[in-house]
């Protein structure tokens, strides 16, 4: 069963830098579906629009970001809701109870001048205004125990926690109200491998406990190989290939995905890896047709002229590439 559906989403940053108008097409016609009890990975390089896509799924659209088209549907308790036709108050109510967010690991996601329990209390209070302070605190404590975190973290200030612990506290905060969808944007990027593994472990555990949808956005294919069920590869604001983790790693079809997978170093194999030539395009001036064609060795005329459609090519496997379609 699906819980979030995005249909042909388009969004752009419209900047007015002292009179010069600049439009950055960060997300172009992205369609995807998040299902109950799965980990969906979104992979892409920096500046490919993955963070913007997450903001769209979440309904966090503020200037200069603008929604240019498409819909986001939520399935909440069997009802279908169109995110962008909801009133702001309704949208707010869905936050944390239906969909929540784990931001990039950094020092600064928790208010530095209040204790961790204060932040937990504020989030709970906003969604359960009639509950008493003690009750709320008890609820927060129980939640931490369930996740295997020491409840004493509630009594300290954020700067007293290590980076890994802080990120785990944020995960606990995001899952406080048992949301059906959790979106994690680069949740382990700044962390060391050992801590990274611990944090991913926690994310996965919570997902298994809640049987909900977890979205992990990252540039690190290694992370996705380990935790994702399905993966969408983003390039220049589009998802260009989507398949199960096995298919992506074993039979990638899009030339970009192939470069990406084949250039990954692996232990026990010192064979030469080749990178894709050139470098990723700027979202301000996208190439015509398929955005990857200037770097693609197999590009044909059609690739330069028409944007390939994102089509199903196999079991749960979608690709946007003329070469695949035309054989």
């Amino acid at each position, binding site marked *: 069963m699906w819980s979030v559906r995005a249909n042909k989403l388009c969004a752009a940053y419209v900047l007015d830098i002292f009179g010069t108008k600049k439009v950055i097409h960060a997300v172009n016609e992205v369609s995807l579906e998040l299902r109950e009890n799965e980990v969906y990975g979104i992979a892409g390089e920096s500046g490919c629009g993955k963070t913007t896509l997450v903001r769209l799924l979440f309904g966090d659209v503020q200037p200069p970001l603008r929604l240019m088209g498409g819909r986001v549907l939520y399935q909440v308790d069997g009802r279908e809701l169109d995110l962008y036709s909801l009133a702001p108050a309704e949208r707010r109510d869905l936050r944390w109870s239906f969909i929540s967010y784990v931001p990039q690991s950094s020092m600064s996601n928790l208010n530095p001048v209040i204790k961790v329990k204060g932040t937990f209390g504020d989030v709970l209070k906003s969604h359960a205004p009639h509950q008493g302070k003690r009750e709320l605190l008890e609820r927060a404590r129980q939640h931490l125990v369930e996740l295997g975190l020491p409840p004493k973290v509630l009594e300290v200030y954020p700067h007293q926690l290590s980076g890994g612990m802080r990120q785990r506290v944020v995960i606990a905060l995001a899952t406080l109200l048992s949301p059906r969808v959790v979106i994690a944007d680069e949740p382990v990027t700044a962390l*060391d491998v050992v801590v990274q593994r611990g944090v991913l472990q926690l994310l996965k555990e919570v997902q298994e406990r809640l049987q909900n949808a977890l979205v992990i956005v990252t540039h690190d294919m290694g992370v996705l190989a380990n935790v994702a069920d399905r993966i969408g590869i983003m390039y220049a604001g589009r998802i260009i290939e989507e398949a199960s983790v096995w298919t992506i790693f074993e039979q990638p079809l899009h030339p970009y995905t192939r470069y*990406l997978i084949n250039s990954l170093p692996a232990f026990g194999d010192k064979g030469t*890896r080749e990178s*894709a030539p050139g470098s990723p395009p700027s979202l301000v001036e996208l190439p015509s047709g398929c955005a990857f064609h200037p770097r693609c060795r197999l590009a044909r005329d059609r690739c330069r002229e028409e944007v390939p459609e994102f089509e199903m090519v196999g079991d749960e496997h979608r690709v946007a590439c003329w070469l695949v379609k035309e054989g």
Partner: protein
Amino acid sequence: MRDVSKIFHMGSMLSRIRITAVEHVSFRVGPGEIFGLAGESGCGKTTLARMILGFEEPTSGTIALRGRDGQPIVGRRAWRRAGVQAVFQNPFETFNPLRQVERYFFETVQNYGLAGNRAEALERIERALQMVGLSYEAIAGRYPAEFSGGQLQRASIARALLSEPSLLIADEPVSMVDASIRMSIMNLFRDLVDRLGVSVVYITHDLATAYYVCDRIAIMFRGNIVAMGNVDKVLMEPKHPYVRLLMECVPQTDPKKRWRAKVQLSASETEEYLRAGCKFAGRCPHAMDICKQEVPEEIYFEGQMAKCHLLRVSQGVQ
């Protein structure tokens, strides 16, 4: 024959907050070798790099350097001209955003007296840029913001090569570079080592790329080198428990090799720095009493070195 070798012997390097950043670290890098220096953030690898580059003085111990001609290098200027140059992590920060990239090339040539006139200088710059797949024409008159990250990183390498140093320090040179072109930079290092005989110290937290490119590797933990040796040996047959933990935690890019067991996380970082004995004892699944009291000694066997009491017991080696 060119013979580049460096012998490090340095004692406790005290930083301002009196935490030993680098402790009794010794290693040598041979000519034409890529030497990996890997570890988590705060393990002292960057401090070590800064000491080799001469940005910081070791509290004790010495660092020696030989040029490509085999002669020992003495003196600050020579140290950087014929000795050691660096490639940094963020290519967009490597060059001043307000200045043209080419100016660094001319300054390097001029300051080290590498050319007599402008034509010679240009020729030299062109040669260095050709080696990394660029040309003078491609960089002339342009500011850093006009390049892509990959191009800038190549330019940065070319600048470092201008003075024909015997050693290149590459501090996380690809972590800020787009994933799809990362390997081309790694391949470039390999290529340069093979062609020029320059040595490279590759500093990274990423064991996978280290495995890909390095000949030998040292794993650092809290200011100590805990394991060192041939990269295949150290990483594929890890002896030290910390290296084993690291290897288990590196996300393998293959869904067939997913993680299974759980890991234990460290309490506080400062605590580990101040710990007497083996710094890893607090998290080590095999910790013994002696580990908490005595600093383990270096144990050599099967072409690798490891600092661990456990190994002495199990292997019975000196």
